[in-house]
């Protein structure tokens, strides 16, 4: 039996410092792009691919996303040289050469009439550049909300959005309104008879025994009161979502309307899924989706962001349902078994660390991995980083769970030195407050794990 050692590539000194793109690597990509810019002078990247009917791929904007006019090739050259060593995240305002090329590839892919989803997944897996404004569309494609045939986009979108509107009307009405509608269809113009100025008010029958204190199972009122518990829970959780972000929290009009939208989506989901209802944590999965869709450069998409988010949320959650269902906790598909799989994955790749964590220091993976897995790492990194991780998670054709496990394993391996040196308390503290890292090389390591484990 060969004792598994830490693979050599992990021990390389590369991981301790931020790698800067080498000059050659840089110029190669740069020259590919300048030829593209030289030939077409196209609109800025803020054009949504959905509206672009031309066959030429729109050229990505130069480093500053805010520049509106197409630049000349010389200007690109100057600003590119300034770029120097920007960080791998692409978080800086100036995207790296990698980002530009990926953006070009994505744009190319998106402007095709029939989108090749496998190709899109491959490119998106490496990350979607921030300033490009195409993340919203790419995510919608990855989650299967937008059909692959671009010609069908407008009809599909219209259909889904009106469906959502009906959901809202049907499910978010309070019982007073519902009963009023029931009555108005039966009685005719009772308001007219109110003209009498004095005298006894006439009593009328209530249809179907609907009154507020009704205890009947089918009673609208009874259902309302039973739902109100869940609605309160949703309300509390939504208020606590990302309290550090102006987009979600605070008293501004924008934040309030965003919170209302999140609430509506979760309430409708809970009502449409009586088996699963609402579980704490769903709000955390919903938040990045809504944020990305609301920041779509296309105005119409922004207006309908709520409807789009709802369907994408349903799609995303359909793969993760088992994690949220309490009865399945101990079953083969439940969260416990997923955590066990993570544990085994770690054992495969880094036996020493696995042994130290689980056997020596007895850090049960449930203590940290539960949150990592059920919330898709939204709570472990800052918002921008978790969106980058989601780019990779969502582009996995088998669903986010597989990639997620590899990323979690990579997270453990990257801090192995500190973990190996620590005891139960310090390890647990470290894992529950995962230190901020360079996301790109986290994802790189995760990808390497896939290659190795076959």
């Amino acid at each position, binding site marked *: 039996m060969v004792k598994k050692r830490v693979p050599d590539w992990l021990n390389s000194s590369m991981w301790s410092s931020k790698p800067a793109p080498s000059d050659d690597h840089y110029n190669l990509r740069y020259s590919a792009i300048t030829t593209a810019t030289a030939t077409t002078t196209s609109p800025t990247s803020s054009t949504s691919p959905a509206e672009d009917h031309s066959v030429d791929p729109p050229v990505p904007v130069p480093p500053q996303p805010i520049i509106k006019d197409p630049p000349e090739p010389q200007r690109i050259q100057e600003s590119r040289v300034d770029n120097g060593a920007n960080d791998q995240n692409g978080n800086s305002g100036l995207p790296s050469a990698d980002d530009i090329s990926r953006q070009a590839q994505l744009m190319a892919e998106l402007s095709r009439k029939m989108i090749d989803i496998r190709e899109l997944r491959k490119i998106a897996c490496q990350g979607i550049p921030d300033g490009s404004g195409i993340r919203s569309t790419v995510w919608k494609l990855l989650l299967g909300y937008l059909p692959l045939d671009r010609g069908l986009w407008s009809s599909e979108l219209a259909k889904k959005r009106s469906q959502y509107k009906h959901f809202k009307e049907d499910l978010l009405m309070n019982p007073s309104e519902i009963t009023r509608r029931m009555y108005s269809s039966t009685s005719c113009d009772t308001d007219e008879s109110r003209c009498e100025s004095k005298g006894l008010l*006439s009593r009328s029958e209530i249809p179907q025994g609907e009154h*507020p*204190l009704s205890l009947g199972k089918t009673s609208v009122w009874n259902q309302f009161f039973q739902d109100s518990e869940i609605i309160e829970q949703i309300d509390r959780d939504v208020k606590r979502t990302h309290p550090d972000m102006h987009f979600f929290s605070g008293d501004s009009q924008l934040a309030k309307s965003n919170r209302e939208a999140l609430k509506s989506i979760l309430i409708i989901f809970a009502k449409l899924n009586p088996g699963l209802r609402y579980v704490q944590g769903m709000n955390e999965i919903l938040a990045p989706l809504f944020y990305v869709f609301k920041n779509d450069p296309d105005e119409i998409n922004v207006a309908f962001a709520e409807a789009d988010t709802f369907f994408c949320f349903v799609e995303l959650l359909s793969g993760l349902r088992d994690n949220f269902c309490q009865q399945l906790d101990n079953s083969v598909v439940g969260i416990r078994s997923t955590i066990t799989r993570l544990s085994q994955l770690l054992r495969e790749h880094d036996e020493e660390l696995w042994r130290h964590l689980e056997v020596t220091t007895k850090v049960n993976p449930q203590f940290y991995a539960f949150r990592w897995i059920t919330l898709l790492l939204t709570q472990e990194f800052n918002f921008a980083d978790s969106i980058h991780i989601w780019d990779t998670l969502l582009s996995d054709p088998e669903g986010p769970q597989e990639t997620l496990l590899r990323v979690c394993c990579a997270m453990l391996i990257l801090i192995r030195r500190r973990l190996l040196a620590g005891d139960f308390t310090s390890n647990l503290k470290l894992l529950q407050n995962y230190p901020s890292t360079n996301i790109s090389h986290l994802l790189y390591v995760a990808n390497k794990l896939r290659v190795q484990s076959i």
Partner: protein
Amino acid sequence: MVLVLALGDLHIPHRAADLPTKFKSMLVPGKIQHIICTGNLCSKEVHDYLKTLCPDLHIARGEYDEETRYPETKTLTIGQFKLGLCHGHQVIPWGDLDSLAMLQRQLDVDILVTGHTHQFTAYKHEGGVVINPGSATGAYSSITYDVNPSFVLMDIDGLRVVVYVYELIDGEVKVDKIDFKKTSTSHSAH
């Protein structure tokens, strides 16, 4: 959509032992936002029980109430409506529409809730609406022994009120409703 429970004239423990079981099973905490009680509870235990149903409790003093510190009349605003509360034994003749209308104008309220007669009534006049929820326990009144237990639940939604009348007739709970709307120019502002 605010639910307001109006009841009174329970006379527990003197004339009745408790609310009817069927009423009690319907009155669960968490559904009702306000309780208006016309008075004559009479004991502290009833007050505590009502408090468990809803923390926002308003009571006017009836002539047999053991707690002497309840007010004779009370006014409160719920949503777009002003409600007035009074037991009703002070208004003579008991249950007379015109006299109650005078009280209503005095209190300047849209809906006046009074009791004492132990009979459910709902009157409308130019000044507004007078509602008598009757006796929730069916206790005998100064006037008659023939009393059906009844109470009222108001659903205040914007400018409309739906009044649900719950009565226990021959052992069965019967529910009716009354709709009315407040016209926006109903009262002149002072």
